């Protein structure tokens, strides 16, 4: 029986110096629930407790006396931690348990390690084991004791946590990247927004963005501020209709539901127009306004209005119109006098005339009428060029207007012995069109047919409903004016609608033409949206077609109506 001095320092307490009997010791080790074994200084197992036997599956009677402690843990013979302590091969510990061991802080000379034993259990086990040398009273190592603890669960949890932490870390990194991307996007968007705003702000025309039918102001630019005298923060959020009332030419207030912002939200597409807008100080200015809708996810949510102060333009237009009116007024003075003088002389009121005197006077009269016609044409052309002629549609009968024009030329038709036929389809619908403009068009086409057809020639005028519109979408009424006259030479056909252009053969036939007739016709038809075309062969004749949609012409405000020419 020996005494065992474990060399354990239990905190501050020194174990009592009285002997612990081997019996007692055996009992302690044997009954401990903690798996442990004891080897002597020859590495032979002297104790293998029940807990370890159960744990390792190796019975005490199998193990005691052997040095097969490795069998319980390893698949091959190698020292356990306890063996290393017996042999004082402390340097081997780091080698055999690299990164897995530690020197106990509690128990001097004790070492602990954690390792994975793949052969144990079903899929291997993690064991935390502590070995400590046993010294006798003289301090000689007489053995070593090793205890084990299954820390598989704990280790699994640790690993799981580590994995999770790893995953979390990766998620965190991904998030950081995503956030950084978003930030970049945000900055980019911010820059674009700033750019767009800068552009909007600096646009020379006034711009206002409104939301909803109440025309709630969202944004205005500098030009708009200057135009109306309100600053952005003063009117943002308010209804544009309250802030800036709108009137028509006659001074009538345009109600909110009729303002372009409302119309556009109703799905209409109003053309650019000029209205009179009130400034902050109550003064008024004419503004040309264009409005388009803002769509968001398929819905019309607001409108963008572009407004231009056209005070100056209108002044210039007015000045031009006045000048032209005045100029044409002056220009007409002389021809009036010439016309009346010639008329008086030709009537014989101032005495009888010789044949030659009569001839010369007639020439004076005729040429003068041409000049008057030219002045009227020029006046019309200037109104056409400026786009300032009024379009004032009424429900008209094209047949009536056409018949009326033909009557005006009755004398000329008779003198040239022309065979003129008129064919008007029954029940032609009325068309919304400006009667004066239609008159000018018919007058020009008919007079051309008459002037450029030789004696005895044939003229046919036909108005009928066509099956297909030339522009698509429904029927057209077609007005056809054809003649058996001189025709337009092929190489001059392209220019026939040009201002002041007269084909060579036309000049030969009639010296008085202005070259403006077809220009005026084409310009009018272009501006009202109707189509004209022709077919012609030199020496054979010409036919002009005018396609008139059943919708007619749209109303347009302007400075003045076109003049009816002189026959």
């Amino acid at each position, binding site marked *: 029986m020996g005494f065992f001095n474990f060399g354990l320092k239990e905190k501050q307490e020194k174990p009592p110096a009285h002997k612990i009997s081997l019996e007692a010791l055996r009992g302690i080790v044997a009954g401990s629930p903690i798996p442990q074994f004891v080897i002597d200084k020859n590495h032979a197992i002297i104790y293998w407790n029940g807990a370890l036997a159960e744990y390792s599956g190796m019975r005490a009677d199998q193990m005691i006396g052997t040095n097969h402690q490795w069998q319980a843990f390893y698949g091959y013979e190698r020292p356990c931690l306890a063996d290393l302590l017996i042999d004082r091969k402390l340097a081997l510990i780091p080698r055999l348990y690299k990164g897995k061991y530690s020197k106990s802080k509690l128990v001097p000379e004790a070492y602990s390690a954690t390792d994975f034993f793949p052969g144990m259990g079903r899929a291997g086990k993690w064991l935390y084991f502590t070995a400590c040398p046993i010294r006798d009273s003289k301090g000689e190592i007489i053995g070593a004791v090793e205890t084990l603890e299954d820390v598989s669960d704990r280790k699994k949890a640790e690993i799981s946590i580590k994995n999770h932490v790893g995953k979390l870390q990766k998620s965190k990194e991904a998030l950081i990247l995503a956030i950084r991307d978003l930030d970049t996007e945000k900055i980019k968007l911010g820059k674009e927004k700033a750019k767009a705003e800068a552009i909007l702000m600096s646009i020379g025309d006034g711009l206002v963005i409104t939301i909803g039918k109440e025309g709630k102001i969202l944004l205005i630019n500098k030009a708009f501020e200057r135009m109306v005298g309100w600053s952005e923060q003063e009117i943002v959020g308010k209804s544009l209709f309250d802030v800036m009332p709108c009137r028509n030419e006659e001074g009538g207030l345009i109600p909110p539901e009729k303002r372009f912002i409302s119309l556009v939200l109703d799905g209409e597409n109003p053309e650019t127009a000029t209205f009179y807008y009130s400034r902050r100080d109550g003064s008024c200015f004419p503004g040309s306004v264009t409005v388009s809708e803002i769509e968001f996810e398929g819905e019309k949510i607001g409108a963008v209005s572009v407004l231009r102060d056209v005070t100056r333009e209108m002044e210039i237009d007015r000045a031009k119109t006045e000048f032209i009116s005045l100029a044409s007024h002056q220009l007409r003075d002389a021809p009036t006098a010439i016309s009346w003088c010639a008329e008086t002389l030709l009537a014989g009121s101032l005495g009888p005339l010789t044949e030659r005197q009569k001839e010369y006077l007639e020439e004076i009269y005729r040429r003068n009428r041409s000049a008057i016609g030219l002045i*009227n044409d020029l006046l019309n052309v200037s109104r056409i060029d400026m786009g300032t002629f*009024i379009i004032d549609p009424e429900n008209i009968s094209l047949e009536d207007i056409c018949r009326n024009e033909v009557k005006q030329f009755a004398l000329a038709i008779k003198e040239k012995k022309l065979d003129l036929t008129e064919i008007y389809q029954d029940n032609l619908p009325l068309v919304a069109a400006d009667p004066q403009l239609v008159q000018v068009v018919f007058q020009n086409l008919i007079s051309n047919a008459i002037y450029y057809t030789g004696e005895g020639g044939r003229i046919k005028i036909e108005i009928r409903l066509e099956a297909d519109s030339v522009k698509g979408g429904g029927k057209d009424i077609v007005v056809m004016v054809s003649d058996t006259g001189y025709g337009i030479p092929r190489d001059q056909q392209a220019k026939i609608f040009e201002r002041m252009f007269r084909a060579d053969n036309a000049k030969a036939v009639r010296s008085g033409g202005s070259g403006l007739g077809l220009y005026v016709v084409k310009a009018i038809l272009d501006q009202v949206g109707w189509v004209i075309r022709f077919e012609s062969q030199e020496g054979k004749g010409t036919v002009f077609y005018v396609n008139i949609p059943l919708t007619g012409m749209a109303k347009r405000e302007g400075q003045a109506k076109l003049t009816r020419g002189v026959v």
Partner: protein
Amino acid sequence: MGLDKKKKILIIDDEPFLARVLSDKLSAEGFLVACAKNGEEGLREVFKDRPDIVLLDLVMPKMDGMTMLKKLRRDERGRDLPVIVFSNLNNDKIMNESFASGASDFLVKVNNSLDGVTRIIKSRLDS
């Protein structure tokens, strides 16, 4: 046809020659003719010896035709007098204003022969 008394026409025009040509023609047609060379004179003439019809030019010095017409209509004596505006101005605004101010007709000089004007005057006087 009015046979008893010759109808009187007042021509208000600042162009002496044109006024004379018109005057000659209308006299030859059997009318009494008086002339005034601006709106001011015209008004005086109307109130001095009332004509049956007035041929009124628009562009005149001292008082233009439009002003004269408005003044005429404001006066009791001039309210019902037929006035034919006879001018070489030709735009919608002027025409509308003329009719709004009480003109019975608007004729563009250059587009009307002497015969034509005479016919129109006669038909106005007959109605």
